Each structure stands twice: as structure tokens, then as C-alpha cells.
């Protein structure tokens, strides 16, 4: 599996290079971009990036503008803003929009590296969770309509008899469906099943 990629966008050559070298000391692969649009055009990076170190004020599309674009395409990449002009309204805005952090230039590089590490972990976790939910969704999608009805009854806490009556089928058939649901969703107990389904519904929302 690919190691997590960190991306840096800053129009100042020296700053960009120095942050790139710093991030490399963490052992992460790094890609650096002179402008926000260059980053948006790198589809592979968009796919793989676990953290974006982003300058606020740049010619062309600004850092704040890039954050906005990423939000609209559903890319929930952790962004660490770095700026030589940190004024309060700007910091408030990017943080409200979900920025991971905001650092005033020049910054203590250890703070940046720590925050990158955290961001990468958060991103990895999000990706893992995302993958897990995709997989669970696949399992749920593998259920037949009747199996899904039985599962809904189980999650609602009904007894087999109640489910059988509700669906107009035999208790035995309910038991058969019930075993198939447990098997398809790869759960061992009713409690586990309930948690999985509730979490899946929550995540789907």
C-alpha cells in the first residue's frame, strides 16, 4: 500500500522547498506546488493526499479559495494553513470551514511536523473508515429484500414470532433468514448486528 502523501502549496520558492524538505524528514512522500490550481490539476495527488500544507495569500486562486473548491468536490483532506499575515477574521473563517490548523509564519517547525503527523493519522483513519463503510454497505447490499425485512425486525428488537407474524411467514423461515443475515453481515451476535446497522445508518446520513 502507498505511504500517505503530503502536499505543499506555497508561491514562495524558498518556503515551499524548506517545508518539503522538513516533511521528508518525517518519511512521507511530498509533492510541492507553486499555486492552488497546479494542485487541483494533479488528480493522483488529490486521490492520495493525506495532508495539505497551504499558504493563504497567493497569486491566482488563494488558499481560502482552494479550501472552498475541495469542500465542494467532497474532498475532506486535512488542511494546515500557513500565513505571513494572520489576521483574526481570516483565521476564524478558515477554521470554521474545517481547516485542521492555522500557523503564523515563521513557525516552530516541530509544531508543523506534529500537526502533519496528526493530520495524516486523521486522514488515514477517515480513509479506513470510509473503506470499512463501503465494505459494510456492500454486505448490506448483498441481502435479499426478505432478509432485509427480517434484519429490520431484529434491529427493532422484535422476537422471531413477532417478525414471522408481521411478515406472514413461518418462524422457521424467519430463523433461516436470520442465520443468513448474520452470515452475510459477518456478525456473531445480535448485539453486534444492531451496532453495525445503527452505525451504518448514521454514517449513511
Amino acid at each position, binding site marked *: 500500500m502507498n505511504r500517505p502523501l503530503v502536499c505543499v502549496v506555497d508561491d514562495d520558492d*524558498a518556503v515551499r522547498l*524548506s*517545508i518539503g*524538505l522538513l516533511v521528508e524528514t518525517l518519511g512521507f512522500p511530498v509533492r510541492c506546488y507553486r499555486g492552488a490550481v497546479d494542485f487541483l490539476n494533479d488528480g493522483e495527488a488529490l486521490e492520495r493526499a493525506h495532508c495539505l500544507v497551504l499558504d493563504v495569500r497567493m497569486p491566482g486562486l488563494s488558499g481560502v479559495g482552494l479550501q472552498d473548491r475541495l469542500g465542494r468536490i467532497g474532498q475532506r483532506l486535512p488542511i494546515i494553513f500557513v500565513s505571513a*499575515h494572520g489576521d483574526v477574521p481570516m483565521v476564524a473563517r478558515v477554521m470554521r470551514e474545517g481547516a485542521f490548523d492555522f500557523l503564523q*509564519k*515563521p*513557525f516552530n517547525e516541530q509544531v508543523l511536523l506534529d500537526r502533519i503527523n496528526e493530520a495524516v493519522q486523521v486522514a488515514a483513519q477517515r480513509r479506513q473508515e470510509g473503506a470499512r463503510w463501503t465494505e459494510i454497505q456492500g454486505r448490506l447490499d448483498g441481502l435479499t429484500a426478505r432478509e432485509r425485512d427480517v434484519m429490520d425486525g431484529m434491529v427493532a428488537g422484535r422476537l422471531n414470532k413477532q417478525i414471522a407474524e408481521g411478515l406472514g411467514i413461518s418462524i422457521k423461515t424467519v430463523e433461516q433468514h436470520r442465520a443468513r443475515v448474520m452470515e452475510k453481515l459477518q456478525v456473531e451476535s445480535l448485539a453486534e448486528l444492531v451496532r453495525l446497522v445503527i452505525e451504518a445508518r448514521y454514517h449513511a446520513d
Partner: protein
Amino acid sequence: MSAVSADLAEDEERWRLALEVAGEGVWDWNLHSGQIYRSPLWGEMLGYSSEDSTGLKWGELLHPDDREEAHHRLSACLSGASPDFAAEFRLLCKNGEYRWVASRGRVVARDASGRPGRMVGVYRDIHEAHSLMDALQASERLWQFALEGHGDALWDWTLESGVINVSQTFRAIIGLPADRPLRGNDIWPARLHPDDVRGAVAAFSAHLVGVRSITEVEFRLRTEEGAYRWVALRGKIMERDRNSKPLRMIGTVRDVHDHYLSVEREMRQQQELARAARLIHVGEMASALAHELNQPLTALRNFSAVALRRLDELGASGDGIREPLQLIAEQALRAGEIVHRVRGFVRRDSLLTAPITINDVINDVVRFMEFEARAHAVQWQLALAEPSLQVQGDQLQLEQVLSNLAKNAIDAMSEIEGERLLQVATRLGPDGMVEMAVSDSGGGLADTVRDDPFAPFVTTKPDGVGLGLAICRTIIENHGGRMWVEKSTRRGTTFCLSLPQPAG
């Protein structure tokens, strides 16, 4: 020689003698041979012996200014256009001076074609008469000049003795009683404002040596009550001696006091405005500078951090480099904070003060300026109150103020031969404020900054912008303290500042 011609010659001789006795010389010019006879009086008049005078040529002795006119008149006579020759001109004497001479003559012989063969005439020394005329004309010019300045006060100044006479209007301006006699130099330089002496002397000199055709200057004169009034003076040399040395000056004086004050007030207002405009620019400049500086500082910090991390991979062999590299990284952040604070300062952000141990501030600055002090052979001398006094302040800003003062002190001593001492002393002032004094043993403040060393954009440093002390003072004043120059002599300068103690 025939008897007739001998008689004639005798006749001529008789007339010549008669004329010479009457104080007139004669001349007799043979145009064919070019020879000319002149009475001995001619040479005597110009200061030559009779032997010397024979080779003298009239045309060469003529004053350049008179040459054209004299030649013109002579030609007119020779051609017959005018029956007589009559001219007044100056001739060069043996001693180098010019003497006014009048000459009259007539062509007495022409050949058949009308060409002149002989011309005779008389000449007369008219120098004394001419000098009288000059004086008369000068007196006339004098009155013309006085009348030009209609309504102005008049003065008449004899340069050698310094004696000055002034009109009643003049006396009224300075409140001088009409009957009070004036002695030499009583008006100037005696009543001149000390600050205006230099300008007045320059204006008079420029006219006296001939650079200016007139003396024209404004200065303040002390009145009888002791106040000063602005006057505008115009003057002109009216008499010179033979060597054209000025003897007497005459001129006018006008009271321009009220006019001058309004002009001065306007000028001061304009200066204030210009200064305010520059201060507004400081805000913009600081903001722009903050951005421009923060970028390289970020890179500097990051690169040194990268280097430190790579050094770690080398193990113990990199130990000697680690510490200076760490200092570089620290200083980059410190510079960033200063930039940030300067920006905050011009944005009038509120100050973040806390109780601070003043000796810590001083020791920190001494530590990070150690190298610079040593490079300029400057010795630190600390006289700090123990235990350390506490102040309410922003440590970083106070470090900035002290390092600025120390930097100035080191610069002030860069040229001196003797011992270079940078003293920092603290004490509790009489008003309960903590006082800090920073002294150098340099040559004192330059004249250009002595009046107000804190004024922004005034600097003696070739590459300076003149903001250092201005920012320092504002920082201290924002702390509720004061900053001032305790002393500045040729043996050194002491800057002082006071800061409040922590409350409670």
C-alpha cells in the same frame, strides 16, 4: 632752415610754453611720419619720467571702457566729418591707476586729396574734477535708492567705523528713542538674533565682494523691550575708495514681523502634515515588510531545522555544529516575533504585558549581542540593581528597545580612539518608576539629530531609515513610561527610559 621757418618754430615754441604754464599740455602729431610730440607735462601727469614717456602710445594707455568712444571721435575729426576733436578718457598711469584726461585737437594740414597730414591739440588733467562728479552722481543714486524704498526705514552705515545712522521709522520699529545717539555696531551685530547672524553676515559679504549687486536679507532685531522682530533689509554700497574698497552702505529696512509669523506658522503646519503622512506610511510599510520578511524567516527556520535533523543522523560527529544551528533557528523565530510585534505596534494592538525581571531582559540582550560588541571592541559594563527590579512590560518589545539602544551605542563608538564602554544601569527612580540608562563613550549626538533624536526618518547612518529611536520611544510610551536623552557631550551619550513596576 629758412628765417621764415625759424620764426614759425619760435612762434610755436612760445605758444607751447604759454599753454604748459597754464596747466595744459600740447601735442603735435605728424600723420605722415607717425611721429608725435607731447609736452613733458604728459609724462609727469601719468607718473613717468621724460625718458620713459617718449615710447608711450596713447591707444595702449586708454581705459578699455573709453577706447571705442575716443577712437570714434578721433576718426570723425581726421576724416573731416567733425571739425574738432574733443574727448574725455582715462589713461593708465605708471602706478596702475587710471587718470581722467580731457583732450582737444584739430587737423591743421591736409594734402590735395584731403588726407590729414598734421594734427595739433591740447590736453588737460581733469581727474579731480571728475572725482567730484562721481561723488555727485553717487549722491544722486543714493537718493534714488532711498526713494525706491518708499515708506521703508532708512539706514546709512560707514563700514570702517561701524557708525550707523537710522531714520525715525527705523527707530520706531525697534522702539529706539529718537534722541538716543547711536554708536558703531549698535544696530548690527549688537541687536541681531544670534541664530540670524550667520545668514546676515553671508548676505552682506556676498554684496561686499561683488557676488550680489545688493544686500537683501531677513533677520530678527532685538527691540528695546528685549523681544525680537523680523525685518527685511536691502542695502547697497554707495561709496568706495580708489581701490574700490567699500566705505559706505545705505539701505532700507521693512518690518515684516507679522507677515513672517504667519508664513512660519504655515510652514510648521505643513511640516507637521508631512510628518503625519510619513507616519501613516510607516503602518503600510511595516505591514508589507512583515510579509516580505516572514517568508525568508520561515525558510531560514525550516532549513536550519532540516539541517539539524540531518545532523542527528551523523551522530556525535556533528555536535560542534548543532549548537550554532540551533541558535540560527531560534533567532529566525525571534526575528519573526519582532516583525509581528512591529506590525502589532503600528496597528495599535493592545500590549501584552506581564511582570518581567528587568535584569533578564538585559542579560538576554547582552548574550545575543555579545558577538557584535566583541567585533567592535566594545566592553559591556553592567550596573544593575540587585535583586533585580521588576517591571510591567512585554519582554520581547523591551528587548527590542534595549538592543536598538545598544546597537546605536556600538555604532557611536565605531570611530573613537579611546576606551569603548557600553554601560547599562538600572535603578528605582524617585517617582517609583524603574529607570534604565544606556551610555556610550562615543563622540556625542550629531548636530543633525541633537534637537530631536527620536524624530522619525532622521538619521546619521548612511543606510538607516531613522525609525529605530522613534519606535523605541513609542514602545516605552505605550508601556506608560518615558524615554529621554540624559546627556550628550563629546565624551558620550546617555539614553534613559523609565518603566512602571508591576501593580500591587
